[in-house]
């Protein structure tokens, strides 16, 4: 029903823009990862795998990537543990569904940077938590381990990404047919059995989607580790930022970015297939 001219008019501008300002930059990043730096100042275009070899041979990169994945894994687990029962409550028990739902979303509208900063004021040496503990005579000096540790990063990122885990789980639970639950209970299954045999399996696609959000988003985070992580909480994005700034090695930074990009795409591909496998509709 739409003419060729109409189709061209709606398709060509976005295709052109995306090719110019998304595809080209990503391809430049890819190319850059095969170049190298000479004399610490100039990027020269001698193609090779030197940056990728470098990544394999210098243990610190693998270590930091592994730590980032551990932190992201911890955040994912905590976000699911906090988010799933919350979603379950809102979907099945809450009297004011809309209100509770929106209460989960509202923190997302507070600047991410500002929330990370708020955790810093809570966890710091002179922070709210330490002074509170001393005020209550629970501790006598400041507990220094709270800030500048992977723990602080995990806590902050969990705070930020729990709503992201909550949303798809809630959507999945909300779509569980209520008559299936009634049928299960009518046929004599207990609440617990009904949950594990009926509700939970049907919510798995939501759990997978929520876990993907939490994992992928916290994996690439760089502000929380910079603000709260200290040396022991450095994550892979921080290394990229350093390589593009003070350390000036764009090609190596590009190589790490390409690896992150491939990792993220692989995770998305995998979870998409898992979600399909578990969806019953």
């Amino acid at each position, binding site marked *: 029903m739409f003419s060729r001219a109409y189709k061209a008019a709606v*398709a060509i501008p976005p295709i052109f823009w995306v090719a110019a300002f*998304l595809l080209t*930059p990503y391809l*430049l990043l890819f190319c850059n990862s095969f170049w190298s730096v000479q004399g610490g100042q100039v990027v020269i275009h001698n193609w090779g795998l030197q940056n990728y070899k470098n990544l394999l041979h210098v243990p610190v990169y693998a270590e930091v990537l592994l730590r980032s994945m551990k932190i992201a894994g911890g955040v994912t687990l905590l976000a699911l543990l906090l988010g799933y*029962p919350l979603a379950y409550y809102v979907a099945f028990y809450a009297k004011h569904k809309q209100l509770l739902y929106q*209460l989960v*979303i509202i923190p997302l509208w507070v600047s991410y940077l500002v929330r990370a900063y708020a955790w810093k*004021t809570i966890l710091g040496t002179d922070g709210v938590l330490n002074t509170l503990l*001393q005020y209550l005579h629970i501790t006598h000096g400041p507990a220094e381990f709270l800030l500048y540790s992977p723990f602080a990063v995990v806590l902050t990122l969990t705070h930020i990404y729990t709503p992201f885990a909550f949303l798809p789980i809630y959507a999945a639970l909300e779509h569980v047919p209520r008559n299936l639950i009634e049928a299960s209970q009518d046929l004599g299954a207990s609440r617990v059995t009904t949950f594990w045999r009926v509700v939970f399996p049907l919510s798995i696609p939501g759990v997978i989607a929520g876990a993907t959000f939490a994992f992928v988003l916290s994996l690439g985070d760089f502000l929380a580790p910079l603000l709260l992580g200290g040396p022991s909480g450095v994550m892979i994005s921080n290394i990229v930022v350093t390589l593009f700034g003070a350390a000036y090695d764009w090609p190596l930074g590009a190589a790490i970015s390409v690896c992150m990009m491939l990792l*993220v795409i692989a995770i998305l591909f995998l979870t998409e297939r898992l979600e399909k496998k578990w969806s019953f509709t």
Partner: protein
Amino acid sequence: MNAGRRPLWLRLHVIVVFAFLYLPIAILVVYSFNGSGVGGFPPHDFTLNWYRALLDDGALWDSVFNSLQVAAAAVVIAVGLGLPAALALDRVNFPGKAIFRRLVLLPLILPGIITGLSLLMLVVALHMRLSLFTIVLGHGTALISVATTEIFAGLQKAQRSQEEASLDLGANYWQTFWRITLPNLKLAIIGAGLLIFTLSMDEIAVSFFLIGRENTLPLEIWSRLRRGMTPEINAISTIIFVFSLGLILLWYRLRKPGSEEWETAARAVEGKA
């Protein structure tokens, strides 16, 4: 399963999670009124000095003004391209459509710094100067994804038959677009615009690499955080919070209360990812 018998542990869990989500925000707001600085329990010396200090802070207001300009321009670019992109995804079959869709959505899920530094490479390759303009380019391009998903969802809900009728009755494509397609998408477009505006106001990872001499608000806050914590930052954050809350309320008011309301919000948050 009815609202009657709620297990105690589940209720406790819900209270704990909400405390966890709101505690930092509450503390942020409380300490913006604290005379003796950030931290220290209990807070004392209630004061409005930090808000007063904000008024005289020229650099901060410059950055607010910069951010407002950037966000407005990003909305124009992202909606201006997201609308045709959504129409194209809905009604045009072209080679590479699947790749196009994935590419448009990629900035949503990819770490922001990767999109930011990829664009930096383009800027360097083109010998452009870093300025607010490059930030607009970055935000506009990255947020086409949000506009496309929101407007595409709006298109799925609108009825194609109205457009068919309009064309059958002799209106041309242009008239049909202005009189039928666009009015049907009004809510989706306004929603996308508000969302893109707030996302751009808060964006930091893409901006980080594209910043010139003039700061946006989040980057101004960021550069101050590195110098040390002051309740002035709490004060400006409280103001931004109230402002964003106003925008989100406006957004909800625009939508008719209905069952799919939460779905729209879910897409919005996925957009924020």
